[in-house]
């Protein structure tokens, strides 16, 4: 039987959909049977990111009882299966999202991983995604408003009997005002599953003639590397998460040279700086033998 993961955040715009799409494909690339479900019933856009916005049968039809979930499962890019949510405002108004848990339970056995892209906020649609999941991965940015919102989502998830198992910190830039990963872990009392750096390649994935997840057209990008590490962690492979921070002067020179080169600079150069280590072991992550997060600043 597969495991259902909800990717939730509280705050919008933290990258849930992007991480869901790329993580799903990363898991599929490891030979797992993966189903992505756009559980954002009101503001669906996972289908846009996967380039599958014109699917005739959607989750709306399933929740309205007009179609079976099997009819709404499509073959997506990178070997995943995908259930799109509808874009129609009319059907959204008629949908009862409370049925989602039953609908997801009906296909759990057919997949290794079911990833639900939850909406932002803590309203009914979010609750339906959380209650339909076995585990919840909370996505946040390393800034206080995002952390405050993800904390509320954690409280709601626990209230609903869902199990928040870890955090994915997205848009990590290693800037001075960012909250340190170990502080985020302590505040939210959860381990970090991945630190995903801010990556221009992710932004550019939305600016292509044919939109597709970054993992498919730029598999060596920094963000994809981190997402692959999260996939390894979910599949039970021990992994070390590394975020490399550049010296500001080298970063500036790289940016300067990039302007003349007219292409993104390669960021291979690393600087010797102090090393902080945050180690946490949690009962909720039984399959992982080593859980170390290493941050190079």
């Amino acid at each position, binding site marked *: 039987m597969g495991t259902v993961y909800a990717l939730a955040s509280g705050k919008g715009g933290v990258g849930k959909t992007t991480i869901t799409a790329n993580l799903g494909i990363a898991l599929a690339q490891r030979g797992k049977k993966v189903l992505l479900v756009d559980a954002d019933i009101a503001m669906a856009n996972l289908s846009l990111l996967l380039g599958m916005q014109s699917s005739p049968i959607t989750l709306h039809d399933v929740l309205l009882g007009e179609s079976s979930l099997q009819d709404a499962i499509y073959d997506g890019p990178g070997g995943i299966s995908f259930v799109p949510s509808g874009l129609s405002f009319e059907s959204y108004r008629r949908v009862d999202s*409370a049925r989602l848990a039953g609908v997801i339970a009906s296909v759990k056995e057919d997949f290794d991983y079911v990833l639900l892209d939850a909406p932002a906020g803590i309203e009914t649609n979010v609750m339906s995604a959380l209650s339909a999941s076995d585990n919840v991965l909370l996505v946040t940015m390393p800034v206080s408003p995002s*952390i*405050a919102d993800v*904390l*509320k989502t954690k409280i709601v998830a626990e209230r609903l009997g869902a199990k928040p198992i870890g955090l994915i910190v997205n848009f990590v830039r290693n800037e*001075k*005002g960012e909250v340190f990963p170990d502080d985020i872990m302590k505040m939210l009392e959860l381990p970090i599953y991945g630190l995903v750096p801010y990556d221009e390649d992710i932004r550019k994935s939305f600016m292509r003639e044919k939109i597709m997840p970054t993992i498919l057209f730029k598999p060596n990008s920094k963000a994809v590397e981190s997402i692959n590490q999260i996939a390894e962690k979910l599949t039970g492979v021990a992994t070390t998460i590394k975020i490399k921070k550049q010296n500001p002067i080298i970063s*500036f020179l790289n940016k300067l040279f990039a*302007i003349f080169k007219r292409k993104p600079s390669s960021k291979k150069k690393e600087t010797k700086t102090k090393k902080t280590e945050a180690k946490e072991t949690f009962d909720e992550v039984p399959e992982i033998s080593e859980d170390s997060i290493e941050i190079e600043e």
Partner: protein
Amino acid sequence: MTNTIKNFAQKLLGLDNTRIPQTQLTEISEILSKHNFNINTTDLKKLLGLLKKKHLVDNICVASKNGSVIASTANGNSLKEAITGTAMFNYIKSEIPRSETILIKSNEWYMIMPYKNKVFIVRAPASLSTIEFNALAKEVEDRLSKGKSF
């Protein structure tokens, strides 16, 4: 380009005034500590009291479908709540057979929901979603079905 040079100059001259908002973070940490509920208790009344706080409701009454009280947080009028709630539920159910939850808005919200041969009657300042109501009922039912020594 201008911004990059400006940022670079600010860093060189020590004019970068970004920092971690520690006060905010302390306040955020305190929120979580107020929402940690350990509901591992063998006392049913105590369990309902904890669930009241966890789900932010004023009263929880668990009744059988014939109106007898199984447990309640109400002091004194639990019998009245159980009989009225189940009578109302049975009446609505007879008129609208597929009804799952009854919501009544008075000064506060009265919510009635059946769950595994029991009727849950909850009073709260704001309405609970059916998802949250189900979660609450499940927590009580799980404990009852485990046969703890209540």
